[in-house]
């Protein structure tokens, strides 16, 4: 069990690292396409969308820990003992 957990944890760390690398890559590619001296608006818009996606994804990547901490907090807050059920 512990092995599986550490395996998944490693996987998460690796994915996070790869994600950051890909963020920079996408960001660079996106700017490269957007700033390229070609008169095709559609291509340029695709580059812009890439930058947008990458920035949003970077935001969610950075917020990941916060998101799960928030879930844990809310779940624990909501699990309040409810009144006893009436006996029939």
């Amino acid at each position: 069990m512990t092995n599986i957990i550490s395996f998944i944890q490693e996987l998460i760390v690796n994915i996070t690292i790869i994600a950051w690398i890909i963020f920079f890559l996408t960001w660079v590619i996106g700017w490269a396409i957007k700033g390229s001296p070609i008169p095709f608006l559609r291509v340029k818009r695709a580059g812009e969308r890439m930058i947008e996606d990458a920035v949003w994804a970077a935001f969610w990547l950075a917020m990941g820990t916060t998101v799960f901490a928030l879930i844990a907090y809310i779940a624990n807050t909501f699990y309040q003992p409810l009144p006893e059920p009436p006996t029939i």
Partner: protein
Amino acid sequence: MDLLSIAFYLSVLTYYLGVLIYMLPIPIYGLKKWAPQLMVDGVFSAILVFSYSLIMWLIQYFSGILGSDWNRYNEWLLKEINIIIGVILLFKAIGIGLSSMGLGFLANSLLSPLISSLTYLLVFLLTVSTLVYALYLLSHTLVAVGLVLHSIPFRITRSSGAMLISIVIIFSIGAPLMPSFVDLISNNVVEQINENKYGVVYADIIVTDLVNNDISHSVVEFRGMDQNLLARYLADIAGYVDSSDIDKGIPSEKTYMSIDIVGYKYSFIITPEDLIEKKDNKLVLPIKLSNVISIKPLHYMIFMGFHGNISIVSITNSSGTIMVSSSTEYVLLLILPIWDSGEIVLDNSSIEPNNVVEYKWGDIDFKAYKYIISLGNHTISYEVRGNYYSKPVIDEVYYTRDTLGISIDKPVYFINIVSSLIYRVFIGPIVYVSILFTASTALAKLLGGSSSKIARIVVTGV
């Protein structure tokens, strides 16, 4: 809790995979659409994982509100199993009775298939109960496994996990309510065979006296432990009760038995099954009353409150001499039809009775001479004059026909018993399990997708 940790980390992994796909500089819509999906799935799975305690608590809470009680469920199960086993044993005893009467074909063609169906019914009931009970006992583990399945990325086992969680929730709450549902929809046909808690055996009864002479026309009664009359038979002139007839039979389990000899009753608790002997291919229940001397039909001598030995000196069919030694004072009764007479000679001198009682029994008038004999050794001679004989009139109650209400002339009755049992412990539970199954599917849809196949296999095993 390890399973929950795995489930949590899997949901985190799902989330980050979603983010990773979001970032990919590949403008393929088919791939990109997974990104928000995976992120939302990860968050939802994490919420579910953290709600594990809440889920288990909700199961308890709703069980309490709806009045789910596993003790009541177990009692119901035990009662149904007992009824089915009772009916199987009853049919088996009737089958043996039929075979011994040369009606084996009836036992083979009618009763054997019915007994088989009842056996299948028993297997079904026990399997369903084991399954339901296992779901309840393993609910913590199964919910955790369901959460792990639910959290695996790319929705590979999401619906299976949701189904597993919802099945555990719904069955843990709903299954103990099955007895109430079955009671609600079932009829009362099965109730009339409840008397069979005393079993049945087809055996004759022989009632004999001190010297193994037959006691003619004794009335043999069987009563349940709550004193309700189960059977009443009149012995023939040879002291033989022909109770192995298929309409008759006697209880096989522990019951009260009483033997009435022209108005004087002997009662004791007996388990006929343990005392039955096999004589000439017939089952016989021998009963010996060692303080009665049968002089001739309807003429008896009875020793009451007697503690000692009786030895026979000589006996003819109307007189006799016996040696009696008793450590206590006792009452000697000489009972004759009112038209006959008799006398007792104690130690070679004729004695007068202390009391004479006249009464009616079985539509015949009797008189009983009552002698009080002191303790010690005595030689008692008796003589009766007259040969009055008439068969007593007694209302007989046949055990199989009257008490159990079974008549071999109406085979449909046997089928009725089985079909009402099938209705009660097969169709009822199947309908109820289907209701729970449908509810589980609906709940699974709420939790992120349903897999009816998983539900069917978990619930029915096929």
